[in-house]
């Protein structure tokens, strides 16, 4: 894994951007092959994908709405990745953040705006706690965070599932669905682009991008965190308490994922609904990798994934192909991103054939 991280850092900014774009193109190319082999019309699929993602104001709103939590979960993945850790548990951290936000939003009585902020941070802190657990286990007992974050994810999903199920303590008695009661108006984020669900949550995500960038590249603590990720032995030599950084990194990862959940509750659903996330936490892994672990990159990678998700619905609706094609494309993009050597070889091969 460290080699992936190193490979990501070795090339210059322009080269990285180029490689990323090329990977995306390759993914679409292979996607076309799959579509062609399966007998679907390639132009119809891509036209509908585009229409659904960027075709009109509503499509753009949908894309941005879906990109919002993915920006935050991508940041969650990359901040742990920068410390040499794999946070696979953003989905669960998001669920924990979401349920706490829903409770604070529904049951606390505070003035508007302040209520939103308190509910947002309550969710973030809950997520941070869910990230802290694997961080602590990693630092004190050397437990592999890959396993613990993923397993705690299922714990979180199961736990929230129970809480909102009929007879569960947080179940909304008036509803048939498995959900909590609605968040009070004082806590809700204003919608930006009606009638879509785009809300102020996207501003929260944008601020988070800047803060994560600032933290990683402009604070001593961020410096230490990256140092541990690149060379734990050199970090130790530099007097850095590496174990504390591991805990910090996973806690921050949990915080960001928790904020993603909170934003969904306060801006999109206005209550915790069981299964509210179509897998935004998992998307964060892809988002973080496509962004090549750079905070600003997550804006673009989240937009790409959000667009694929929004476009997929239109593809499905138009019967051009099953909506799953979006998942296939997303997986292909990740595949080509994680195989940078493959892409580099292709570039070199092209260069040689030009000569």
């Amino acid at each position, binding site marked *: 894994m460290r080699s992936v991280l190193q490979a990501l850092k*070795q090339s210059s900014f322009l080269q990285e951007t180029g490689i990323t774009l090329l990977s995306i193109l390759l993914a679409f190319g292979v996607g076309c092959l799959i579509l062609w082999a399966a007998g679907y019309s390639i132009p119809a699929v891509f036209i509908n994908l585009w229409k659904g993602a960027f075709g009109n104001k509503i499509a753009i709103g949908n894309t941005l709405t879906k990109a919002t939590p993915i920006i935050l979960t991508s940041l969650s993945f990359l901040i742990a990745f920068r410390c040499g850790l794999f946070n696979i548990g953003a989905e669960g951290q998001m669920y924990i953040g979401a349920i706490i936000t829903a409770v604070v939003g529904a049951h606390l009585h505070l003035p508007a705006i302040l209520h939103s902020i308190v509910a947002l941070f309550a969710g973030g802190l809950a997520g941070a706690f869910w990230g802290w657990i694997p961080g602590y286990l990693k630092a004190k007992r050397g437990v592999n965070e890959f396993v613990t974050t993923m397993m705690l994810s299922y714990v979180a999903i199961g736990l929230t599932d129970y809480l909102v199920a009929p007879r569960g303590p947080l179940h909304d008695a008036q509803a048939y669905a498995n959900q909590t009661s609605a968040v009070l108006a004082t806590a809700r984020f204003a919608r930006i682009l009606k009638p879509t669900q785009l809300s102020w949550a996207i501003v929260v995500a944008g601020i988070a991008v800047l803060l994560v960038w600032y933290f990683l590249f*402009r*604070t001593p*603590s961020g410096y230490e965190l990256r*140092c541990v990720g690149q*060379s734990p032995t050199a970090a130790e030599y530099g007097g850095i308490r590496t174990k504390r950084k591991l805990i910090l990194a996973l806690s921050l990862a949990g915080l960001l994922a928790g904020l993603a959940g909170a934003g969904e509750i306060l801006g999109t659903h206005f209550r915790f609904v069981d299964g509210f996330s179509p897998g935004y936490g998992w998307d964060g892994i892809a988002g973080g990798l496509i962004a090549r672990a750079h905070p600003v990159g997550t804006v673009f990678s989240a937009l790409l994934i959000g667009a694929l998700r929004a476009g997929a619905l239109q593809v499905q609706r138009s019967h051009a192909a099953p909506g799953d094609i979006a998942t296939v494309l997303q997986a292909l993009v990740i595949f080509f991103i994680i195989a940078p050597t493959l892409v580099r070889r292709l570039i070199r091969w092209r260069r040689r054939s030009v000569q």
Partner: protein
Amino acid sequence: MPEFAIEMKGIVKRFPGVVANNGIDFSLKKGEIHGLLGENGAGKTVLMSVLYGLYYPDAGDIRIDGVPHKNYRPAMAIRLGIGMVHQHFMLVPRLTVAENIMLGQEPTKSGVLLDQEAAIEKIEAFSKQYGLPVDPRARIEQLPVGEQQRVEIVKALYRGADTLILDEPTAVLTEQEIEHLGEALAKLKQEGKSIVLITHKLQEAIGMCDRITVLRKGEVIGTVDAKETSERDLAEMMVGRDVVFTVRRSQVTAEPTTVLRATEIRACDDRGLEALKGVSLELQRHEVLGIAGVQGNGQAELAEILTGLRPPTSGTISLGDLDLTGKGAKAFIDAGIAHIPADRYLRGLVMTFSVRENAILGQHRKRPFSSTPFWYHQGATTRFTREIVDAFDVKTPSVNTLAQNLSGGNQQRLIIGREFSKKPHVIIAAQPTRGLDVGGIEYVHQQLLKMRDQGAAVLLISMDLDEVMRVSDRIAVIYTGRIVAIKDPEETNRRELGELMLTGSLSSERGVGETA
């Protein structure tokens, strides 16, 4: 049959900001040992990497066995009979010697099943034929460095190498192992192999090679017959000036003041075996205390103990009145103990960080680099890095260049610059000249002595006995985790120290442990 195994003409290789090879001509006769000599960054390794197919040259021709080849990759080089033994071994620690050697060319039974025995037989045959004793069934991680190197050589032979490139093979070896290597190379030559020996050690070049080509700043200065040259001539070719071989030490007449005191230190190594068995040391201002010893006698653990990287199991460490026992690396750094680590790849630098980010490692939470936990000052950091780069002559295209793109010598200069600019009270220098060329070694020695003259207490841990003798004011000999003797360099000699290092005592006076 062509006379030359390898002919390289007009090789040019450029990297961003540097011309590593600037029109190099190099030829290797069949059955000769050819030394490739030059300072760090002279372009030796790059030239051989071009030959091995790791880089494509920007210009120039390569003939292998008289046949021209262009833009090939290492796999092709191997097929053409070229084998390379890198400075950092490319072995899988968890696998056995046989498994490592046959990796990629596994012999099979009926095309499917792995035939380990066949491989082991073949390895043993090679091992006997070329006088390279290796145990095919041992695991790499259990082997000493010298044997790992033999495994690399056997691996190259196993793959059918007729031309061997050895990149600084002696840098990691003990004196005895170097001797064995010399014998093995002579044997390989007898068997008709051609060998390129990359080195910057003059003595070895003269002792082991038939011809020597000297590179400087990416150009060939000349090719000479080893029998018709001298260390002084070669040194002049390498660095282009008369190298001062003896370091002139100024006499300091200040009263000895103990700064760092370690008492009865016991500690375990990574495997949990006791590596230090009651070491006591006193470091004094204005003094270099040299630690002489054969590698693996507790030096590495001692350096880590004295810099807070490894907790002692018993014993105390104090700096003046400050008790440092059981404290972490940060406390040692803050107390003014600088550390030049033995391993600059693992400890000294974050290779994927820029020069600038590396320059503040360990001081990154201090003024002027950061005044609050929320901000670190780009400007101050850049200024400071420029100062180090200028004062310690670190050759780098810019402060934003990644540390891994610097040559070994410049990496070391960066580390030294960083550590010395802290104005430390104590300097723990572990193998500070490992892998450096003559000029670089001289530079490091002068810097260490300058710090000593300014009042620092210096602990110099080195496997190079000449280095210890040249720079130290006192020499402590370490043997199996104990300090067995303290000597004045003026009143001892190589033979006496060598006996102490190898046996722990002198045949003339069976000594007991002393306190430094």
